[in-house]
C-alpha cells in the first residue's frame, strides 16, 4: 500500500523564500507535515506544552491538540516502542529524543524491532516513523548532551539515517523523512539550531537520500554532515584566502550513503578529508574512507584523511574544544593532504 501522500499546495506560502533558523525550519516542516496528513503524530518528553527543550515543537500541541502532540511518560524505550505500534496501526509517528545521550534506553527497540519488522514480515509491515535526535557538541553542556552516536544506527541494517545542516534542508528533509515508509533517524545539529538561512517553501532542494556539493573547488574535497558542514564551509573560506580551493560536500544521508558525488569530486581533486564529530574508530568517516579508496584508487594523490572526535568519552565541556574538530584541524588535514 502506498504511503499517504502529502498535499502541500494548501500550506504553500505566496512568498516562497523565507529566512529562518534551523530550529524554526524544522518546526515549520513538522507543521506542514501535520497539516498535510492527519496521521502524523509528534511524541516525546516535553514536546507539548513546553514545545520541547529546544522549542522545536513549539506551538504544535496548541494547534493540533494533545492527541497529535503527545507529552509522553519519561521513557525513551516507551517512546520508540509505542511508536512502532502506532506505525503498524497506520500512524506516522515523529519521535523526539530530548538529547542524543538519552536514546540508549530505546536502542533495543530500534535495533530489535524498528530495524527488523519489515524484513521479518516479508514486507507485510512498514514502519513509517521518524526519530528526531538533537546531536553533537559545542554547547557547553553536561554529560550525555553532546555526543554523536549516529554510527551505531548507520551500522544497523533496516534503519535509515540522515542529518540536516541548514534551514532549507531542515525544512524539507524532515517532511521527506516523514513521507518515507522506512524508519528514519533524523539527526539535528543542535549547536546550529539558531543559524539562519533561506528556505524556499515551494520546492525541495534535493531528494532525502542524496548528498550535495555546497561549494565547488579544485584542490581538496571535504566531506561533512550535520554540525561539521558549517565548520567545513568556514575552513573552505579560510583556505581560499591562502589560495587553496576546497570542494565541500554535505553528505545529508548517512545510511544509505550517497557517495557518487564524492567519487566524482575526488577523481578531480585527488584528495579527500572527511570531517565528523563522532569518534573515528569504526565510524561513518571510516566507511567513507574505505569506499573512496576502493572507487577512486587511481585518482588519489594522498590517503583519505579523517578529522573526527577522539575515541574517548565526550569530555567535560571546558575540554570539548580539544575534542571537537574545528576549522584549524580541518585546515591542518588539508595541509597534510596537499603535502603528501
Amino acid at each position, binding site marked *: 500500500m502506498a504511503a499517504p501522500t502529502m498535499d502541500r499546495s494548501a500550506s504553500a506560502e505566496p512568498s516562497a523564500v523565507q529566512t529562518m533558523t534551523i530550529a524554526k525550519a524544522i518546526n515549520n516542516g513538522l507543521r506542514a507535515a501535520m497539516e498535510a496528513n492527519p496521521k502524523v503524530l509528534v511524541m516525546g*518528553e*516535553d514536546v*507539548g*506544552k*513546553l*514545545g520541547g*527543550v529546544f522549542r522545536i515543537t513549539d506551538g504544535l500541541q496548541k494547534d493540533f491538540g494533545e492527541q497529535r502532540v503527545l*507529552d*509522553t*511518560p*519519561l*521513557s525513551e*524505550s*516507551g517512546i520508540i516502542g509505542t511508536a512502532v505500534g502506532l506505525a503498524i496501526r497506520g500512524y506516522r509517528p515523529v519521535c523526539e529524543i530530548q538529547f542524543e*545521550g*538519552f536514546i*540508549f*534506553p530505546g536502542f533495543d527497540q530500534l535495533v530489535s524491532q524498528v530495524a527488523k519488522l519489515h524484513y521479518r514480515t516479508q514486507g507485510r509491515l512498514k514502519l513509517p516513523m521518524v526519530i528526531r535526535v538533537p546531536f553533537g557538541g559545542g554547547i*557547553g*553542556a*553536561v*554529560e*550525555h*548532551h553532546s555526543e554523536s552516536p549516529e554510527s551505531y544506527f548507520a551500522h544497523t541494517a533496516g534503519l535509515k539515517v540522515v542529518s540536516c545542516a541548514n534551514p532549507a534542508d531542515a525544512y524539507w528533509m524532515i517532511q521527506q523523512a516523514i513521507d518515507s515508509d522506512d524508519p528514519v533517524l533524523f539527526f539535528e545539529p543542535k549547536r546550529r539550531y539558531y543559524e539562519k538561512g533561506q528556505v524556499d517553501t515551494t520546492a525541495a532542494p534535493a531528494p532525502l537520500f542524496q548528498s550535495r556539493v555546497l561549494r565547488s573547488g579544485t584542490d581538496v574535497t571535504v566531506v561533512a554532515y550535520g554540525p561539521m558542514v558549517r565548520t567545513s564551509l568556514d575552513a573552505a573560506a579560510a583556505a581560499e584566502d591562502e589560495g587553496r580551493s576546497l570542494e565541500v560536500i554535505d553528505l545529508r544521508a548517512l545510511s544509505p550513503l550517497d557517495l557518487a558525488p564524492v567519487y566524482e569530486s575526488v577523481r578531480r581533486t585527488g584528495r579527500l578529508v572527511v570531517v565528523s564529530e563522532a569518534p573515528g*574508530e569504526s565510524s561513518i568517516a571510516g566507511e567513507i574512507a574505505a569506499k573512496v579508496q576502493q572507487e577512486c584508487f587511481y585518482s588519489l594523490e594522498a590517503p583519505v584523511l579523517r578529522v573526527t572526535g*577522539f*575515541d*574517548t*568519552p565526550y*569530555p*567535560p*565541556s*571546558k*575540554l*570539548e574544544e*580539544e*575534542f571537537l574538530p574545528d576549522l*584549524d*584541524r580541518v585546515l*591542518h588535514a588539508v595541509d597534510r593532504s596537499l603535502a603528501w
Partner: protein
Amino acid sequence: MSSPEKWTQPGPDSPPATAATPTAEQVIAGLRATDEGGADLVQLLTPEGERVEHPDFHLDISGEELRGLYRDMVLVRRADREANALQRKGELGLWVPLLGQEAAQIGAGRALKPNDMAFPSYREHGVAWCRGVRPTEILGMFRGTDNGSWDPVEHRFHPYTIVIGNQVLNAAGYAMGQKFDGKVGDADSEATMVFFGDGATSQGDVHEGFVWAAVYDAPLVFFCQNNQWAISEPTERQSRLPLYQRARGYGFPGIRVDGNDVLATLAVSRWALEECRQGNGPILIEAFTYRMDAHTTSDDPSRYRLSDELEMWKLKDPIERVKVHLVKQQWADQAFFDSVEADAEELAVEMREFCVNLETPPAGRIFSQVYAEGNPVLEAQRDEFLAYHAGFAGGEH
C-alpha cells in the same frame, strides 16, 4: 458478565493525588491535583511547625539534633542558591536546583550510616552534603572541568547519574553485593539507598530495579523524590496511581512521606534502612515534595506551570517549619540563627572563590583514564594530538 467495582475502581482511600486531572476548583485556583499528599502521608512536623504523632513512626529528637538538621538545610539551600547565582553570572554552564527538596534530602541523607551506600541522580546536593561531599566538589561538573570530583568509594556516594533511572539498577546490584557479602542481618550490616525522581519511575531501568531488588531480597531503599514535575510534565503523566503504591505490585512496602518534613523523612528513612539491614528489603519511599525552582537553569517553568502553585508550596517550606518549631520549643535563640546564617555566608564565599579558581585540566587530559588497562590505539591518538597541540603552542601553525 458483571465487573465488580472493586476490581475496576481505585479504592476509596486513594488520596486525591491519584486523580488524573485536577478538580474544577483546583484549576480555578491555579493548582493541580497533587498539592495534597493524601491520607497515607507520613508527617511528624506540620507546615505550621507543630509536632504531630504518627501511629507507625515515632521520633524522639533533641534540640541539638533538630538544630543540626536545620543547619544542614540552611547551608544546603545557601549552597544551592550560590551555585544558581554562579550560573547566572556565567561561572557555571548549568545548575540543577534543589530548592524545596532540602528536607527530603537531609532527612534521607542523615538516616544513612557511614557504611551504607547511596546512589544519587543529579539533584542530590543535600544527600552529597550528608555524605561528606563538599558543595565545592560538585561545581566542577557544572563548570565543565570534570564529571564530579569526589571519591565515590571513600564517601560511599556514587557519581551523579544524568541518564534518567540508570542508577537504580546499579544500586540494586550494589545491594545484591552487600547481601552476597553477608552484610545483612547482623550488627555491622549495611544497606543502600537510591535516589530518583517521579519522572524516572516511567523508565524501564527503574521497574527492572524494583524486580531485581525484590527477587534477591536486596537491602535497597528506593527513595523517590516526587517533586511533582519532570521538566514540564506533571506526575500524572507518569502514573495513575500514587507512586508509593506501585511497590505493592513488586512485593515490597511503599510509603509516602511528607518530603518537606525533615523529621518524617528522617524517621521513615531510618526505619526503612534498618529493615533493609535486617534483611527485610527492599522498600520504596516516596518523598512528596516540590521543585520550587526550575528543572535546571536552562528551564523556564513559567511556560508550563502557574506561579500560584509555587506560592502555595511556599507555605509548606521545609526550613521555615523547623525554624518555627525550634523557636516554639525554645531550642534555639537568635544567636543560633545568626550563627547559621554566618556559616551559610562563609560557605557561599568559599564556593565563589573555589568556582572561579577551578582550573581547566591540561591538554591531553581527555585521553586519560578511558581504560583501566590502557589502549594502544588511543595512546597513539593522544600522542598525535599532543604533537598537533604543541605546534600551536610554538606558533608554528
